[in-house]
């Protein structure tokens, strides 16, 4: 068994909103090369966990560690610069900036980046995502599907070690969904690590190498998809809705 690096680790992460315990002592480790599907009924705390693991929320208890070093409550942009990228449930692009500019922003936050180099990389990713012809268009003029691809592109510009995708398949028509899945798999084969949150079970099961299930703020299962699918606790969690 090879020792793979643990890129992101949530150790005993807890978060409370008012009276609700959104995350309850969650242990979550992302190893290099993983493609994790994170699922669970609505309100199980998945997005909260993602927010915490990417630095957008500070946990009330526990800590987040990147490559073994505790982040110590740093701001979200530090995570991004350290290689933790994420997309949002509802795409949050820079609407009135062009497609290229959207990619230049993350491109230029990397240390020692130059405009020329960032532009080159951006164009490369635009080709990969089939968006090259839209380079000068304002992001708000893209179709929904193109926007999701662009958001993925923004992540890639950070040359991230881990990508957290929050409901990438939500409201996406089958053709685009297949395109997205293809891209994710290509990138994964190229060495990127993914954590994908979604409700689209079919897609998740298609791509995941490992399945993590959450319910009511707790992690209730974590392992190979075939095993987790038949786990009693998981089934009752979903059935109990």
């Amino acid at each position, binding site marked *: 068994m090879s020792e793979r690096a643990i890129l992101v680790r949530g150790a005993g992460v807890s978060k409370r909103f008012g009276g609700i315990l959104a995350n309850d002592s969650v242990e979550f480790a992302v190893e290099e090369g993983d493609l994790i599907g994170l699922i669970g009924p609505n309100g199980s705390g998945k997005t909260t966990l993602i927010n915490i693991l*990417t*630095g*957008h929320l500070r946990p009330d208890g526990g800590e987040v560690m990147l490559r073994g070093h505790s982040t110590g409550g740093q*701001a*979200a*942009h530090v995570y*991004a*610069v350290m290689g933790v*990228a*994420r997309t*949002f449930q509802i795409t*949050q*692009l*820079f*609407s*009135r*900036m062009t497609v*290229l*500019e959207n990619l*230049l*922003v*993350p491109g*230029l*936050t*990397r240390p020692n980046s130059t*405009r020329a180099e960032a*532009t080159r990389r951006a164009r490369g990713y635009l080709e990969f995502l089939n968006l090259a*012809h839209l*380079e*000068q268009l304002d992001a708000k003029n893209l179709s929904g599907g193109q926007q999701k691809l662009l958001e993925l592109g*923004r992540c890639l*510009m*950070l040359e991230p070690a881990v990508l957290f995708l929050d409901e990438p398949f939500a409201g996406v028509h089958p053709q685009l969904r297949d395109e997205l899945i293809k891209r994710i798999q290509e990138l994964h084969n190229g060495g990127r690590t993914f954590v994908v949150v979604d409700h689209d079970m079919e897609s998740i099961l298609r791509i995941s190498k490992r399945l993590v299930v959450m319910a009511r703020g707790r992690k209730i299962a974590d392992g190979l998809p075939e095993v987790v699918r038949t786990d009693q606790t998981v089934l009752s969690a979903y059935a109990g809705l």
Partner: protein
Amino acid sequence: MRHLHVYVLMALAALALFFAPGMNQYWMHVAIMAMIYSILTSSWSLLAGYAGLFSLGHMAFASIGGYTSALLVKWFGIPIPLGIAAAIAMCFVLGAFIGWVCLRMSGPYLAIFTLGFAEIIRIAFSTEDDITGGMAGLHTEPIFADTTRLPYFYAAFALLALSLLLMGLLVRSRWGLFLRALREDEQAAAACGVAVARFRILAFAIASSFAGLAGGFYAHYIGVLTPGIGALDYMALLVVMTVIGGMERLPTAVGGAIAIEFLLELLRGSYRWDVPLLGITVHYDPQWRLPFFGIILLLTMRFARNGLMTPLWLQFMRLGEARAASAAVPVVREEDSRA
């Protein structure tokens, strides 16, 4: 040819400088004020139009800059350029502080807070009149001993050109991209690695230092400084100028300042107009010019939100490009970026 619009502007500038000595003093004063306002509107557009931070405290910084320079010169006899430099430094630090304090405030809350800040400054300057001279005014050292305004004209021009150059460099750099990203979506910007807090503070600090520059120059130009310049009335005028011109670009913000300042002066006289067909006489009272611009502002917001000068400016930028536009591959046009 590319950059044709730049050459045209430079030519116009050269003409203005060349013919300046022949201008009459009154209009020269208007031009100087227009240039001071231009520094203020363009720096405000950095904050509001680029970074999305609607600070209503911008004129308060101009006021702080003015008093800082005036008082330092008065008490310690330092040369005026040093006084103005101190004003800039003071506003940079104070601006950064306000930016830091406002970090977690959004939109209207930020506006209200900075409005409050401006009010406190005004009240403090007004009340502590043993220091500031209060409402009676503080007499300042003039920069030039000349009896004409001509040197002030050239100085204002130089300061405006320098300010626009610096701000322009900022806006075209990656920092410009980051500021715009802040306005679009702060959370997404953070997710892209933009140090949100740092840039918000920086935006405030930089914009406020330009306000301090304008205030400091104004103080030693106008001769008498009163707390009123930090008041809401002047801030409102700044907003009016910037929004009508176009708050998302530096050139349009400057255009708004110049156009409205000149129009304000042109509209200062009262006119009577006998309408031929209807047999009535229309009286124009100069007092109406401010409400008039208020209406223009409302119309602009309602129907041409990115400013009245923006379409003109965009067309102007395309002056030399009729032939380049036929290229099949879209060219990354730097001119289209917000500079």
